[in-house]
């Protein structure tokens, strides 16, 4: 954690002087969450592009006879 003396150059413009230092999630954790979010977004985008356009009809049409 930065000491008072060290905090000045790191202070962000939107952080008022009198407010206590916010305790953000660790930068690593936030970055990981953002990565995960953008990762799942790109997975969904990929699937959106190929998913059967009429899902209901596609599901209704997939009828199998039982096997072993």
């Amino acid at each position: 954690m930065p000491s008072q003396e060290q905090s000045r150059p790191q202070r962000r413009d939107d952080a008022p002087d009198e407010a206590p230092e916010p305790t953000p999630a660790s930068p690593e954790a936030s970055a990981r969450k953002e990565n995960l979010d953008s990762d799942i977004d790109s997975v969904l985008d990929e699937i959106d592009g190929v998913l059967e356009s009429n899902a209901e009809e596609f599901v209704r049409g997939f009828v199998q006879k039982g096997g072993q």
Partner: protein
Amino acid sequence: MTVRRVMGIETEYGISVPGDPAANPMLLSGQVVHAYASAQGIRAAHASWDYADEAPLRDARGFEMGRGVADASQLTDEEDPSLANVVLTNGSRLYVDHAHPEYSSPEVTSPRAAVAWDRAGELIMRESVRRLSQVPPGVNLYKNNTDGKGASYGTHENYLMRRETPFSDIVRHLIPFFVARQVMSGSGRVGIGQDSRTAGFQISQRSDFFEVEVGLETTLKRPIINTRDEPHAVADLYRRLHVIIGDANHCDVANLLKLGTTSLVLAMVEDHAIDEDLTVSRPVATLHRVSHDPTCRELLELRDGARLTPVQLLWRYHDLAEKWLEERYAGELDDDTAEVMRWWALVLDRLERDPMEASREVDWVAKLKVMQGYIDRDGLDWSDHRLRAIDIQWSDVRPDKGLFHRLRAAGRFEELVTDAEVLDAVHEPPVDTRAYFRGKCLEKYPDQIAAASWDSVIFDVPGHTSLQRVPMLEPLRGTRATVGPLLDRSADAATLLRELASASG
């Protein structure tokens, strides 16, 4: 013996014609087999199946079911000329089983090889779909196990075991293991209940279709332990344990663990090394409950009153295996066994912390993660058709349409077997089982083979009035090491048979 033993995977693929749900699946399945076989230059009259040694109604408990009381779907050995049935050069069998095209992998000796030849089957089905697509609307195939409407079709594992091992020991130790195994190797499914009457997501495609603990059936009243006793090998020495409870896997790691951990448990059973009673109370109901709980927190109750999560129960088996391997092999593990033990611990560790951490290794986790993404983004609930569509399309064999294949191409899964190894396995048999002899004979003398099966090749040699049958009742004979040179120097089947006769004479 460790994870290594003679084993294989057979998979019935889901089949449909776009826009025509009423299309006849038996005829379509025949077309799938025919499309692939004819492209390989295999004619129906050649390399058909030899049923002489098949006995699907023999029961491991020591009796035989009368044909009169068997359901028609259990009679798999009566040849129907309208049903296509071929043996391929990789030693596999491609045929129509009931209303599905089935690929039965050649016999292999390691879980890793089982994964490779199982994936080869996906490419074979994909090639057939590609050929059939040239006449629209074509035929689509799905490597899954249910239509979500009440029908299920199987992915079966086969393990060669010593005949002397009491079947009751196998039953006792395997039932609890199978109740829990699905959390590592389930493929995920939208819908609870055989016909999906309750909305939701569950871990396994197959679990809801299992209704009894032990039995001979495979198409109705499915049992956790199947007793079919058809060794396709010297019956006095071997049994082939036929496991029908697994899901079709796409993830290499899940597939490797399905085969590898089961083989290890069997090895311990054969060695009488399991000294704990892990019997689970009410196994069929518990199997369903475990499948219905993607948090993996559902508690199983053991006979001694202990309550464990499925992951904790699998840790018990893992630790037994680790201890047994240490005692038997003193830490000198073969690569295949070491690989299985490494992934086993890693996957259990992830499932225990947060199942979502296993999305690169385990099918159901990967599928659930995608579906949860849709739910979060679009506000869907579990009855939404889009989620059911994703569930089905996940397993489409086509590289552009199949969702798993799209995500694999994008590097989202751990891959243990390379694409090059899989391509090789499409045409080449394993070198270390009798599948080598079978496959190479099909490759070298296709016009001189009348029929083949797991334990025989029947030759039709010019100049001979009768067919000549080469029995192969020892799965570990007919390997490249033993017959490779013989095959290399036999330009035709007549020479091969002469050499075989003089070698054995």
